[in-house]
C-alpha cells in the first residue's frame, strides 16, 4: 500500500508547480551484436520499471519519465555517440552498462555535469566521491566483488586460503582487468597463489586457457567474463571435468543464459550477485501495468530473470534518487545537478525496498558526498540445472574494506593528480 501512496502523496504535493516536461533517463542499451544476450534483459528491466512508474504511479512525483533508447552494440565509440546525441535532451542520469564506455564518459560527465551511475561496473575508484563528483558506482564495485569471492572461499575453507591456488580467468579488457589489484593484495594478505589467465574478446575459443587450467589444477577458478566468454568457459570447464562448485563467476557471469547452453554440465556453477533474484511482488505489478498492456520493452518473457531484475534494480535506484532530489528541492521538475544531489543523499533501507515491492533485493546502504560506492555487499548464488534456477547460497557478504579502501584512495588520488582535481567534501 505504501508503494502506491508514497509517490501519489509526493505527486499531489508537487502538482501545484508549473507544467512540467518529462524526466529523461536515457537508456544506452545493446540489443544487437555479440553482447546482446546480456544487454536485452537489462534494458528491458530498466525501461519497464520507468513504464511502471508512469502507468501505476502517474510518473515520478507526478512527472512522467521518458526513456530515450540509443543502441551502443557494446561498442565504446557508439556509446559516446549515444551520450552526445541524448545529453541535450535534459538527461538526468546515464547508466551505459559498459566499463569501456564508462571510462570514456567519466571526463565528459564531469564537464557536462550529468551524473553517471555504473552499478557494479566501470571505474572502481569512482566510489571516492571526493574525487569523482559526478560518478557513482553503488551498491558495489569490482573490487568489492573480488573481495567477497575471497571472503566466501575463506569461509568455505575453514577461514584460511593459505597455500591454495586460485586462477582468475578474465576478459582481456578494461573490465576484466579491474579485479586484479584487489586479488593481488588479497593474495599477499591471505597467502594464496594467484594465477592470471586472460581471454581475448569475445572469447569464442578458449582451448589454450582451459588446457592450462587442466595442467595447473587450481583449487578455484574465479571468472570475470561477459558475453560468449561465459558460456564457452562453463562448457570448457565441464569438458575438462573441473568441479563446478569450485568455479565462481562475478555478477556479470551469473545469468541464466550463461549456464543454459551447457545444460546439466553447468550444475553447481556459482556466481556473485549484487541483487537477490526471487519472485518479487513488483513483478506482478509489471505484468499487470506494463506487459499486459503491451507496453513492455521486450515481450515480457524476461521478467524475473537475473539481468532483467538487475536492470529493474538500476532503474529503481535512479527513481529513488530522483524522488530524493524532488523532496530535497521541493520541485518535481529536477535537473541533472539536483539528480546528482539526490543520488548523493540516497538511502536504501530494508523498509524502503519492501515498500517498493522488492524486499531484500539489495543490501541496505547510504550514499554520501565522500562515499559514492555503497556497501559493496554481494551474495553467492549457485545454478541448479535440474530446476533451471539460481539458488542463493549466502546472505549479503561485506567486502574487506581494510584492503579495498586504501586501493580506492590511491587510485582516485592518482586520477585527481592527473586531472588537477581538488578533493571536496571537507
Amino acid at each position, binding site marked *: 500500500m505504501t508503494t502506491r501512496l508514497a509517490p501519489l502523496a509526493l505527486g499531489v504535493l508537487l502538482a501545484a508547480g508549473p507544467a512540467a516536461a518529462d524526466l529523461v533517463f536515457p537508456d544506452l542499451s545493446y540489443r*544487437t551484436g555479440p553482447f546482446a544476450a546480456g544487454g536485452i534483459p537489462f534494458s528491458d528491466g530498466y525501461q519497464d520499471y520507468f513504464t511502471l512508474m508512469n502507468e501505476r504511479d502517474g510518473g515520478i512525483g507526478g512527472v512522467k519519465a521518458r526513456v530515450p533508447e540509443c543502441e551502443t552494440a557494446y561498442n565504446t565509440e557508439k556509446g559516446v555517440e549515444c551520450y552526445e546525441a541524448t545529453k541535450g535532451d535534459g538527461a538526468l542520469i546515464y547508466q551505459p552498462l559498459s566499463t569501456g564506455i564508462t571510462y570514456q564518459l567519466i571526463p565528459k560527465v564531469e564537464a557536462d555535469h550529468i551524473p553517471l551511475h555504473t552499478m557494479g561496473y566501470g571505474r572502481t575508484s569512482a566510489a571516492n566521491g571526493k574525487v569523482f563528483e559526478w560518478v557513482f558506482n553503488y551498491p558495489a564495485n569490482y573490487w568489492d566483488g573480488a573481495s567477497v569471492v575471497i571472503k566466501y572461499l575463506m569461509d568455505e575453507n575453514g577461514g584460511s586460503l593459505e597455500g591454495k591456488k586460485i586462477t582468475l580467468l578474465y576478459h582481456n579488457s578494461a573490465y576484466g582487468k579491474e579485479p586484479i589489484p584487489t586479488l593481488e593484495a588479497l593474495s599477499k594478505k591471505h597467502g594464496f597463489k594467484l594465477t592470471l589467465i586472460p581471454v581475448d574478446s569475445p572469447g569464442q575459443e578458449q582451448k589454450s586457457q582451459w588446457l592450462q587450467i587442466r595442467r595447473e589444477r587450481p583449487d578455484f577458478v574465479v571468472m570475470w567474463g561477459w558475453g560468449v566468454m561465459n558460456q564457452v568457459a562453463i562448457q570448457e570447464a565441464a*569438458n575438462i*571435468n573441473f568441479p563446478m562448485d569450485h568455479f565462481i563467476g562475478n555478477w556479470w557471469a551469473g545469468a541464466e543464459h550463461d549456464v543454459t547452453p551447457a545444460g546439466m554440465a553447468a550444475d553447481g556453477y556459482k556466481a556473485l550477485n549484487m541483487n537477490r533474484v526471487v519472485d518479487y511482488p513488483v513483478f506482478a505489478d509489471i505484468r499487470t501495468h506494463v506487459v499486459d498492456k503491451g507496453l513492455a520493452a521486450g515481450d515480457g518473457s524476461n521478467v524475473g530473470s537475473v539481468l532483467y531484475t538487475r536492470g529493474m534494480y538500476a532503474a529503481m535506484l535512479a527513481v529513488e534518487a530522483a524522488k530524493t532530489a524532488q523532496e530535497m528541492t521541493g520541485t518535481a521538475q529536477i535537473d541533472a545537478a539536483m539528480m546528482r544531489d539526490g543520488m548523493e543523499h540516497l538511502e536504501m533501507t530494508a523498509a524502503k525496498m519492501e515498500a517498493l515491492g522488492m524486499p531484500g533485493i539489495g543490501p541496505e546502504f547510504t550514499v554520501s558526498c565522500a562515499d559514492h560506492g555503497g556497501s559493496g555487499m554481494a551474495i553467492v548464488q549457485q545454478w541448479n540445472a535440474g530446476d533451471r534456477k539460481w539458488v542463493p547460497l549466502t546472505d549479503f557478504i561485506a567486502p574487506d574494506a581494510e584492503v579495498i579502501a586504501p586501493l580506492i584512495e590511491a587510485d582516485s588520488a592518482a586520477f585527481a593528480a592527473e586531472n588537477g582535481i581538488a578533493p571536496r567534501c571537507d
Partner: protein
Amino acid sequence: MTDLLYAVEVMINGLMAGVLYALVALGFVLIFKASGIFNYAQGVLALFAALTLVGLQEGQVPFAHLINAAFGTDLHYFGWQLPAVVAIVLTIGVMVLLAIAIERLILKHLVNQAPIILFMATIGLAYFLEGFGDIMWGADIKTLDVGLPQGGSAWLEQATAGWGGENFYGFFIDRLDIVATLVAAVLVISLTLFSQYSKQGRALRAVADDHQAALSVGISLRFIWVLVWSIAGIVALVAGIMWGAKSGVQFSLSLIALKALPVLMLGGFTSIPGAIVGGLIIGVGEKLFEFTVGPMIGGATENWFAYVLALVFLVFRPQGLFGERIIERV
C-alpha cells in the same frame, strides 16, 4: 618429459582447433574460387544457419515478435520438437532458398561489376542477415542439441595418464573436436569428388578458371552462383553447428569469420586444401605460441599471433601457400 607431453597435447588440440577454423575458411574459398567475391557475410551465414537449425528443431515460430506486436497474439512455439536430422535437412533447404534469393536480389544485378562492389554488397548482406536472423528467431542464446558429444575422451585420458610422471594427467582431446575433424574430412572429400567427377562440379571449376569462356560454352553463371552459395551455406551450417555446440547459438557466432581470415591469408583464397592446411598451421601455431611464449608476455596471444603468422607467410608467398601465382605482364 611432462612438459614435452603437454606440448604434444597442445599441438593435437591446435590441430583440432585448426580444423574448426578451416571449416569457416572453406566457405570463403568456395565463393571466392567460383566468383571472385570475398564473401564478408560468411560468418553471418554460419550464424543464420545455426539459428535456423535450432529454430526449426524446437518448433519456434519465425518472426514471432513481429507477429505478436502487429496482431496482439502470443505465439512463440508450434509445439513440435523435430529430430536433429530432419531439422538439418530442412535447414539445408532454407540455405538453398537463401542462395537463390541472394543470386536473384543481389548478384544478378551486379554482373560485370568490380570485385570491390561485390565485396561491398556482401558487407550489406552481412548486416541485413544479422538483423533478419534477429527478427526471425530472436536474439536470445539458444542451446544447440544435435546429439554431438562434449567433453574429453575419458578412455584416452586414462590410458595415457602418468606417462610423463605423476603430474601428467593424460592427453585431453575434446570428443566434439574429433567429430568436427571427421566431418571436415568427409566434407573436403565430398567437395573434391563433386568438383572432379560431377557435371556441375566441372562447370563450377570452369567458371572459376574463366567466367567468359565458361559462358561461351553454355554454362549458366547464375546457376553456378546459386550452386556455390548453396554449398557455402551448407559449409556455414556445419561450422555453425560445431561452434554453436560450444557456446550456444548466439550473435557472436558471426565473429568466427575473424578466425578464418589469417587461415585464408596463409592458405590462399582459391584452394580448398589450402584452407585445410592453413587452418591446421594457424591452429597449431597459435596454440604452441600461447603455450610456450604466452605465459612470459601475459597470455592472450592467440588472436594477434594468427595474423602475425599469416603476415610472415605473406612476405614470402603473397598468394598464400596454395594460392594461384599472380603473374602480371606488361
